[in-house]
């Protein structure tokens, strides 16, 4: 018997009341017990007292006692056995609500002792005449499987579930599908521990037809479950694919956003099997209005929809071609919605609508939220790079923004200008003086580095380039590494272009960089330049002033294969994060986190991650370009490039990070310099495949929150890995 609590205190009072002779008093005591349980007080000592109240005609009281049992059954397995009798009796109750409640609760008790008593009542309930009981029992099978798979298999519950797909009641069908899917996932994710055939829930043509019938009749949540199952079905031929699409399309009109997105998913998957152009066109056309309607949902649902629209646009850019206006941000939209809308607007920008877009973006650039303002300016730059005809208008808008002289606006505009110079060389030299006039304003490394790059690039045309650069050379050791690297390169460029006037400055910068600089990366680069310049100035010219490949806005932010995979998971977390599920979900349910290690390890801070992803997607090209002495191989930047990308990360992370915190940045910079120490270990990092979970370990890992903050068990593993790596 459990140790009795002392004869005073709250628990003692409760225990007295629970044993009271008055019904009302007992019930009240149960309520108070549950209230204590909710706020986290330990009331497990009252187990026997609460148990005494289980046998009652009062349904509400019964539910409360069951709720208590579900919570503490695990801690008091010996005592749960006392409840079994009542449970089994309840599954025979004439009232179907009581029967269902009993079977539902038994499945949640999760005590080994009671499990064996569950099978007989479950067997009975699966055949109950009442559909409400049957639908509850169907899910109970999944609960049982979660606890003890052998029992499910030995008792033939699986076969029984398979039969229940043909049930006359659509809700029962929906729950059966949900249960089977659940079991299927559990079984396939742990092939080693499961003794059964992993393919537990195979959807045959026969099942398909039953599902399609049930789809139109069941509840909204049931529809989602059925649509998910349909998404897994592999169509036999084109006709079948067409048939599925036609049957699913009406679901676009459902009021529940998750049903709409689930239908979109099914269509996207089965459209692969459709080859009739007119049908594809029709499907795509029907898909657009419901997607736009999702934008009037609550912000969270909107956000999920926007993230998915972003994916869909990467696959089918024409899907919403006339709808840019609906993505205009409202003043009171939450930031995460605004940022996502910006991204989509740039995607939808064409020569026709660019004017409207630009005036919007300009408007956003005067709002109060700094992150959003920066993102808007970035979007202007992206538009300029994307649409050649609009570049000049974009530049004019940027100039207007620079004229506001608001510090962060100017800085961001300078960064963006750099991309425009890169894309349209020799076109906008006229504005260089305006940029240089703001030199004193700049205090962020990225903005400084961008301006220095511009000066270096146009050294020939800027008369006082040596003066301007010498400002940075003077403060060389105080600058951040990215600025140092950029200064170094710019001065060398200057020297190669105007050798007569800049001998002194190049000597000075090389000296400082090799002697006083503590970044090995900067030192290495300085040594390379020094040697190049002293050995073979012509070669230096060929390397430093090499022609750079043109930049463009990547049409996709994820690799094509990944895109296909994600489109098959529309509305899931994976599609929201634009990453494959393996990167943030452990395999199997129990030992989820321990299974996985190495570069595949999950990145913890997704909000940061996600924000970074969007930024870097646009930035990627330019980051690589900053790095001038790289051979013109876009696809395989060497160690230096990788370091540079990393060293810029804190800025980017701060820029948009969901939960930016200082320790995080520290970690990143540590990592950045770590990468610098071993420049040979290049991170494979192709443009276009933005920081995916795979391969991009350089980004994912250091983003995890500082080890000290949360006391979550599963986090320890990745932290260890992080330390292990370096």
């Amino acid at each position, binding site marked *: 018997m459990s140790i009795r609590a002392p004869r005073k205190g709250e628990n003692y009072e409760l225990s007295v009341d629970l044993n009271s002779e008055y019904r009302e008093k007992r019930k009240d005591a149960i309520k108070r017990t549950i209230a204590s349980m909710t706020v986290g007080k330990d009331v497990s000592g009252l187990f026997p007292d609460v148990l005494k109240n289980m046998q009652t005609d009062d349904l509400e009281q019964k539910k409360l006692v069951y709720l208590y049992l579900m919570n503490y059954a695990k801690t008091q397995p010996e005592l749960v056995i006392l409840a079994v009798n009542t449970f089994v009796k309840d599954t025979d109750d004439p009232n179907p609500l009581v029967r269902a409640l009993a079977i539902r609760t038994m499945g949640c008790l999760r005590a080994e002792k009671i499990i064996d008593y569950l099978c007989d009542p479950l067997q009975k309930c699966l055949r109950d005449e009442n559909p409400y009981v049957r639908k509850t029992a169907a899910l109970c099978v999944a609960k049982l499987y979660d606890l003890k798979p052998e029992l499910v298999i030995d008792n033939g519950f699986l076969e029984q579930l398979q039969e229940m797909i043909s049930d006359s009641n659509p809700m029962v069908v929906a729950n059966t599908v949900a249960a089977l899917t659940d079991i299927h996932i559990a079984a396939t994710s742990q092939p080693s521990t499961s003794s059964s055939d992993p393919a537990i829930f195979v959807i045959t043509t026969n099942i398909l037809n039953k599902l399609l019938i049930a789809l139109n009749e069941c*509840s909204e949540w049931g529809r989602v479950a059925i649509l998910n199952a349909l998404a897994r079905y592999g169509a036999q031929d084109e006709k079948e694919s067409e048939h599925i699409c036609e049957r699913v399309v009406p679901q676009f*009109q459902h009021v529940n956003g998750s049903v709409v997105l689930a239908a979109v998913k099914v269509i996207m998957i089965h459209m692969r099997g459709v080859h009739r152009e007119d049908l594809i066109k029709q499907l795509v056309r029907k898909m657009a209005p419901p997607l736009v309607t999702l934008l009037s949902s609550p912000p*969270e649902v909107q956000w999920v929809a926007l993230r998915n629209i972003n994916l869909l646009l990467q696959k089918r850019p024409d899907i919403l071609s006339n709808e840019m206006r*609906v993505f205009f941000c409202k003043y009171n939209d939450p930031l995460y919605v605004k940022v996502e809308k910006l991204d989509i607007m740039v995607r939808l920008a064409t020569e026709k609508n660019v004017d409207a877009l630009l005036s919007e973006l300009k408007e956003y650039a005067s709002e109060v939220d700094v992150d959003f303002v920066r993102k808007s300016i970035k979007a202007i730059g992206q538009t300029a790079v994307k649409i050649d005809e609009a570049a000049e208008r974009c530049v004019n808008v940027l100039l207007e923004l620079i004229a506001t002289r608001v510090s962060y606006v100017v800085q961001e505009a300078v960064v963006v200008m750099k991309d425009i110079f890169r894309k349209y060389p020799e076109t906008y030299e006229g504005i260089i003086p305006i940029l240089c006039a703001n030199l004193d304003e700049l205090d962020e490394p990225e903005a400084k580095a961008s301006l220095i790059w511009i000066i270096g690039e146009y050294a020939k045309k800027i008369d006082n380039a040596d003066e301007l650069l010498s400002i940075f050379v003077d403060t060389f050791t105080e600058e951040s590494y990215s600025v140092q690297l950029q200064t170094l390169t710019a001065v060398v460029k200057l020297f190669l272009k105007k050798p007569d006037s800049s001998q002194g400055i190049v000597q000075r910068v090389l000296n400082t960089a090799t002697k006083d600089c503590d970044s090995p990366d900067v030192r290495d680069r300085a040594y390379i330049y020094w040697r190049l310049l002293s050995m073979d100035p012509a070669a230096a010219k060929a390397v430093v002033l090499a022609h750079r490949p043109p930049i463009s806005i990547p049409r996709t932010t994820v690799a094509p294969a990944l895109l296909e995979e994600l489109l098959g998971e529309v509305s899931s977390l994976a599609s929201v994060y634009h990453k494959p599920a393996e990167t943030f979900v452990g395999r199997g349910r129990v030992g989820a*986190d321990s299974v996985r290690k190495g570069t595949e390890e999950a990145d913890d801070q997704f909000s940061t991650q996600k924000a970074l992803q969007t930024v870097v997607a646009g930035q990627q090209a330019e980051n690589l370009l900053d790095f001038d002495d790289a051979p013109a191989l876009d696809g395989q930047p060497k160690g230096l490039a990788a370091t540079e990308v990393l060293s810029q990360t804190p800025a980017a992370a701060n820029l948009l990070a*969901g939960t930016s915190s200082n320790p995080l940045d520290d970690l990143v910079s540590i990592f950045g310099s770590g990468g610098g120490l071993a420049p040979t270990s290049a991170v494979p990092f192709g443009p276009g495949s933005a920081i995916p979970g795979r391969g991009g370990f350089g980004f994912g890992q250091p983003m995890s929150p500082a080890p000290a903050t949360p006391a979550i068990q599963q986090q320890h593993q990745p932290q260890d890995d992080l330390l292990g790596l370096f």
Partner: protein
Amino acid sequence: MISAFFIFNQKGEVLISRLYRTDFKRSIADVFRIQVVSNSDVRSPIITLGSTSFFHVRVNNLYVVAVTKTNANAALVFEFCYRFINICKSYFGKIDEESVKNNFVVIYELIDEINDFGYPQNSEIDTLKTYITTESIVSSDYAAEESSKITSQATGATSWRRADVKYKKNEAFVDVIEIVNLSMSAKGNVLRADVDGHIQMRAYLSGTPECKFGLNDKLVIDKNDRGGSDAVELDDCRFHQCVRLNDFDASRTISFIPPDGEFELMRYRSTSNVKLPLRVIPTVTEIGTTQVSYTITLKANFSNKLSATNVVLRIPTPLNTTTVDCKVLSGKAKYAPSENVVVWKLARVQGGQECTFTAAATLTSTTTRQVWARPPIDVDFQVLMFTASGLIVRFLKVFEKSNYQSIKWVRYLTKASGSYQIRF
């Protein structure tokens, strides 16, 4: 799959906690408190830590949180959270800390009923109310019979309706409610104007009535001119689950067996030919660095038989405003320093009427160079018997076995709250 469901108050105290699955301990709530509630800079409704994802929705200083470890269906989880919020509003009239604390027993019953093992179950408010009540049900033979009816309703093909509804007077009320979203540029160009409409129905009809509903719409999807000249283009419609979507897809007829009582029959969206009921013409000039002058004209752009009520304009002022001197002929204007706006309230504006607001704001001098962001003017209003999209209910036919006569009422309302924005 939702593994756990929590409600937190603003301080991060757990008000409700329910673990549907066993992959979490109760202490997972602490993680959320540390990572989200006590973090002032949360910028995403989903936070993933390790392989644990927290979905949260904020409502009246409460956090409604769902937790999962799988690659869950994000849209479903949020829709579920909002459904829960709606159910609470319907049960307790509101959802806030007090109502959750006072009704935690019912809430536990509810969340167990609408979700089993992480899978959402029947969440039709009307049905739930028949068997989860604030008074307790005593199980007896009579109740068993009653329960059978309830359960067959909860799982039946028309899970939203009882079979034995009887009314003396058969009535159906249809409310067409349109919310106008407008953003107008400083130059007076319409950047975006669209209508989010929903049709709310209150059906007090006996038996199992079969309804057919008709509007003057021509769907953009289906561009044959069946509608005639006054037809309205609806970009998209979404229906309550009682509407037969297949019928709609095939023949554009809206047919359904309505739930008993109030429900939202459909939602729609219209973007073309949106009639803007109120026109706002602002002239705002910054005089030097110490003064801003406002002249704002409001025109009611609809028939003079109608009138707009509860008109509220929120006119932003710079952050360093000290006093605002307002002059209005109609309504009342008052400077609200805490929100940095002047609130101009007009109880009633007749169609065709024109009202003017003039004001001068005095500013303190500041050293910061930050320019004033000029947030848009926000207008709230209601206009009865007017639809901005031009939508009209053509017919509502009710067929029932007993062939009773039914009376139908239709009302129209166009309103805006927080979505009608004019930049200046």
